[in-house]
């Protein structure tokens, strides 16, 4: 497992404070909701809707931080601060990196969840 994807200390603290069983359910929810959040991000980008884009990326950042998905949170935060690029093609690489990091975080969380 790649420890740089999920900060183990954050994940362990989450389990300590809210219970391992609850965290397992929370991971399931994140994995269920994640694709929707990414789709929302793509749709907002396609529509050029900055408000919608910021909200979607903000949610990803916030969830990333909750689970200790440090890279995912950092990439999302970058997008949140930068906002939509005037040239849509320039966001493509960034979005792809974000989606790839989400996939890694989800896989890592799934592995941690199953113990």
């Amino acid at each position, binding site marked *: 497992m790649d420890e740089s994807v999920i900060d183990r200390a*954050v994940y362990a603290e*989450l389990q300590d*404070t*809210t*219970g391992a069983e*609850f965290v397992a*359910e*929370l991971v399931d*929810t*994140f994995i269920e*909701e994640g694709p929707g959040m990414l789709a929302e991000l793509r749709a907002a980008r396609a529509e050029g809707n900055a408000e919608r884009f*910021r*909200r979607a990326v*903000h*949610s990803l*950042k*916030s*969830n990333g*931080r*909750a689970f200790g998905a440090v890279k995912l949170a950092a990439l999302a*935060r970058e997008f*949140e*601060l930068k906002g939509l690029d005037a040239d849509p093609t320039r966001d493509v690489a960034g979005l792809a990196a974000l989606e790839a990091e989400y996939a890694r975080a989800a896989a890592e969380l799934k592995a941690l969840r199953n113990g």
Partner: protein
Amino acid sequence: MAEDTSRVLIADDNKVNRLLLSRSVELLGHGVSLAENGRITLERLRTEPFDLLLLDIEMPELDGFAVLEQLKADPRLREVPVIVTSSVEGVDNIVRCINLGAEDYLRKPVNQVLLKARIGASLEKKRLRDQQKALVRRFVTSEVAEDLLQSGFALGGKRLCASVLISDIRGFTALVESQGPEETIDLLNNYHMLMFDAIGSHGGMVNQIIGDGLVALFGAPLSLDDYAGSAVAAGLEMLDLIEQFNHERSAVNKSAIRIGIGVATGDVVAGYIGTQQRATYTCIGDTVNLAARLEAHTKVAGCGFLIDDATQRALGGSVPIQSLGEVPFKGKAAAVEIFSVMAGQLHRQT
């Protein structure tokens, strides 16, 4: 413990965040309800009582800033404590939340120890505020409390038109001497409860209690359409309730009590008098003096309920009255025509 029954509303558009906060708050022993956007948050706050709101900022439909703005503008909701839980970027956004009335700001993911401390502090502050309000309401009427909450406190009065009702128990001194102090206090409490009920149900507010005497205002501090009619209706209900009260007293071999009521209508000056440290809402002027004279005169006239000319004119014949002619009152240059309200016929009239 107040904490056991505290109800916390969590507003967040993200499901993971909602579940996580909800779990954290439940682990602290509080009840939780959830809202997924600003509009639903306001709807829930307007229909159910909550002790605390945990509010996210980035939300669809209505964001956290808009929710804070609406809470601030709503007198019924502005006292609900709000802790903003967000990972919104920029100190200026946090400052904006505080300026809009949020009590505190917690960065997400929320640290459980901090959450416990902040929720505890907010609920304790709210509990103390509620306690203070309850205390204020015990010593001033809810109308005055509302007036204070809306307009703030300032010494000084304003002139307005109102009806003043003054009543007291006939032969109260003799009654006090014939029974123990506990029994007297008990009697007074029962009596006041009945009188407050009659006055309040007609839109009046009891302004002063002096032993067995009551001064009630109709039309101040909050305006009332038919203040004279309401004051007379309250007086009639007071007499009716006393009759029922006496019925119960006679069943346990206690003597009947009798009251005298005077109602006068006209200009009064109402407002807060006293000092900045200790003040009372009161009402002064000729109308108050006249109501007191009318009440005192019920003993002389041998009837229970006297009103002045301004009050009887405002009634427009809706209540049977009888003119008792003009009476010279102390402090009045000219004699005043007074009217007796025919309390015996009230059942057919009301």
